[in-house]
């Protein structure tokens, strides 16, 4: 309880229960201005039909751009993130990543 100047209890102090996302310190990779000649990474979240959706989008992209290579990665579990090693490998090999949720 917060006392007034006269010493009379006038109000209370209650606490904020919320906490937002922490700043991970990560920054976005530089944005690409073109896709031709780039390496495309595709992350399949392993949900049903994710492969169909991603294949469709990949084909659409391929009809417009010529990729140097396409690396396809399927998560072992829809609920678990890729391992740090897998993420590092993709970051090293790919210029751009396509990810999405199928269901």
């Amino acid at each position, binding site marked *: 309880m*917060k006392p007034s100047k006269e010493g009379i209890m*006038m*109000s*209370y*102090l*209650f*606490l*904020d*229960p*919320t*906490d937002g*996302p*922490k*700043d*991970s310190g990560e920054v976005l990779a530089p944005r690409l201005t073109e896709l031709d000649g780039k390496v495309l990474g595709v992350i399949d979240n392993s949900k049903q039909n994710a492969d169909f959706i991603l294949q469709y989008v990949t084909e659409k992209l391929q009809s417009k751009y010529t990729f140097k290579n396409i690396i396809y990665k399927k998560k*072992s*579990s*829809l*609920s*678990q*993130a890729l391992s740090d090693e897998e993420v590092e490998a993709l970051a090293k090999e790919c210029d751009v990543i396509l990810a999405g949720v199928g269901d």
Partner: protein
Amino acid sequence: MIPISHISSNRIEINNPLEAIETYYQKGWTDGLPVVPPTEEKVEAFLQTVNLESDFALGAIPERNRVFTVEKVAINAIMAGCLPEYFPVVIAAVQAITDPAFGLHGPTASTAGTAFFVVVNGPIANKIGMNSGQNLLGPGNRANATIGRALRLVMMNIGGSGEFDRSTLGNPGKYSFCIAEDETTEWMPLHVQRGFRQEDSVVTVFAAEAPNQVHNHSALDAERLLLTIADRMRALGSMNLGGHQEYGLIICKEHYNTLQQQGFDKARVQQFLFEQARRPVADLKRFGMIEGEITSKDEEKEALVVPSPEHILLVVGGGEAGRFSACIPGWYASHACQSVSKKIDVSPGGS
């Protein structure tokens, strides 16, 4: 000299607690029910029950960059109506859901709308007055109600539920779904089955669908009783028919008596249900759960409810009268989300 507080949360100046309840509603900080307005003094009382600093990170949801600190969990536990002596249970439960094996992001984002089914075992359950008996899944017990509720508020106010919870229906257990196991029986309590000592206090959390009562008031034969339960377990439309997830089961006291008198212990019940809770893959095709023509092999091939007997989380509880047990299907598959048990660390200053 006024000591410098180590509580870092923002303070909100409000004229009185009743007004605070309304303010917390307006800010979207409740689960729809009134909350206890949290004060610094109350947080200090909660911190006294655990050997942890207020800024200690109990766990996180990495996919959301969300971190659960002791202080924020305490504030939400107070709001839920917890008493300080419940706090070690809440702490252990938060550690359980943030264990990587639990895969917290998935079940709390999924359209399936799962709840946290919380089971408390060991001496602390009696010490803080938890209910393991009559009206076990109903209202009326402060510890059961508020420990479960605290987890939900933690998810809503810290875990990012507002952005990420995409439940189609949710389930009533998302308000609170917390019990103590009745450990007065001859059967091995859940925590002992999972490798803890009888005298340990342990919390187990399972991402679960709503409980579904199953009754058989007539069968005096143990196997027929269990076949009734197995029939409910293998219902179409359950995620468990993928055969990769755990399954919660509360056996009521009358059912327990029948089973125990006829030589069934927990392990034998689990084995029996593992063998019986399954159905032909042809059924899954018949109802369109799996696409494709039904072949003769599909009539013989079996879809399992659980991949092993140990995947049945079996607890005893409920009132002395009545032959109503409860089936509690799980979420998706255990490689994505496993139940997790954590020992409750009761400090000398605590319970």
